[in-house]
């Protein structure tokens, strides 16, 4: 089975927040969601975008954790804090360049997207990608992502995943919104 990864086409988002609702239902998430949906220009229009943990190849959250509570799964997923190890220092929340990890003061515990590891380790798509109605969140193999790249190659340097719009190499691939950059997306 070819390895699949999360792939985002940010401009498709319609702001339904199904991804967040589905996130709460994943095993071990204890009915709390772990990602974000933002209004891009809240006073002017309704464009929204999801902000997900991008599962960095060299994750700042894990590097800054004094307790080694954030483990990297063999699939590349950067896991949520191990409950017995997290000492509640919140270094990870300060370190993540995208502000992803959430912290529960009462439980003295950090929690973050684990890419629904109980599903994705067996090749089942994560909850968010399973429910997104607009194909903003997709679960694709590398060759499928490559095909997307060819399909959307606008030859003007405006497309293409991740860098330089991110701080480092990530396991989740992000597609930049052509619409907002003034280019029409070629479906």
């Amino acid at each position: 089975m070819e390895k699949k990864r999360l792939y985002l086409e940010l401009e498709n988002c319609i702001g339904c927040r199904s991804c967040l609702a589905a996130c709460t239902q994943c095993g071990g998430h204890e009915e709390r969601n772990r990602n974000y949906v933002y209004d891009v220009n809240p006073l002017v229009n309704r464009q929204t975008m999801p902000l997900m943990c991008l599962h960095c190849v060299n994750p700042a959250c894990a590097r800054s954790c004094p307790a080694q509570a954030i483990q990297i799964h063999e699939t590349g997923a950067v896991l949520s804090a191990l409950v017995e190890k997290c000492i509640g220092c919140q270094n990870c929340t300060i370190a993540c360049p995208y502000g992803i990890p959430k912290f529960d003061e009462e439980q003295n515990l950090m929690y973050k997207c684990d890419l629904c590891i109980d599903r994705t380790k067996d090749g089942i798509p994560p909850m968010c990608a399973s429910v997104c109605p607009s194909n903003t969140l997709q679960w694709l193999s590398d060759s499928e992502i490559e095909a997307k790249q060819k399909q959307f190659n606008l030859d003007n340097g405006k497309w293409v995943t991740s860098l330089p719009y991110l701080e480092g190499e990530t396991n989740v691939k992000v597609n930049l919104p052509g619409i907002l950059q003034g280019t029409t997306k070629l479906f």
Partner: protein
Amino acid sequence: MQAEISTKQTATHSKPSGNAFASKFAKSMFITVSVIVFLSFIATRQFTHVDLNLYGYMVGTIVFIGGFFYRFIAWGERPPTKIFIKKGIKLLFRKSTAKTSVDHLATYNFIWNRGIYRWTQHIMMGWGVILSCMVTFPLVFGWMYFTMPENGFYTVVFMGINLMTVKADGILAFFFYNALNFSAVMVITGVSMVFYRRLKNMQARAEQKFMYDFLPLYLLLFISITGLSLTFQNVVLHGWGQPAMSLIHQWGVIITLIYLPFGKLAHIPFRPLSVFARNYREHYMEQSKKECKVCGTSFVSTEQSQDVVNVLGVNNMEFETKEGFHLAELCLPCRRKYRIAQFSGFPTHEVKVKEANQNAKG
């Protein structure tokens, strides 16, 4: 890298006494073992009251201490850990330390908030193990023993001092003899609860591994059952098979001690770090607060912000932006909006609107 570390070490250990040891490991080992031997020397009135039946535990303990230092020192060398240990020790005498320690290490309030079931498990296993260690190890090292100067009365000798005299068939003596039976029942209850959860809970079932999650449970169960069986053999079978069982029990304890610093149980000796972390956050938050470079809200202490930036720097991560700030200097909502801005080309973080509902419960 290697060269850099060793020069740093020689620099910090420039005092002549520091150089007598080949490594931090050797030094910690030597000091700890010396302290134990010294305490035993005093407590056993110059080694005149040593219970050699418990010799196996001594060896086990020494091996455990070796494993513990090996793990702890490797762990403490990581840049973020080093900061917390160093500053944590400095802040140890804060007023709140006592309360935080009780919260984190004795009553486990944070686990209560994670769930009452899991809290009960922890109290049962945690206190069961602590109780049995408090009984066993003072006996092993001769820090505590019993004498019977006159018939029908035991004298409890602690650290070489006659602590108290109890009636051999009195209520206190009953608790002394049976402390280990009580603790065994506590541990067995806790372990059974954990087993039940691990069989039923889907998330636990997806993630658990034999070596990490189950082995420590089997070990604790093994120790508790063989321990209880010793009592059973004593009372019901008049001591039949006790020497053999006693060896089996000791063997179980020794294996557990050797395993302890490496598997899941390692979180026990490392847990006090959470008190350090709490003190660190409280102390430096009182000192000076870091204001978000975009919205001006203070969200962390200046010290922690700087420490995280440094740790990231050591890992070659410099999240400098073209606006001239480090991403760690933005509060979390602004940092997220700043990323949206990078994607869309529109400066979302500059729109003075509170972020839409991002509550984890929707």
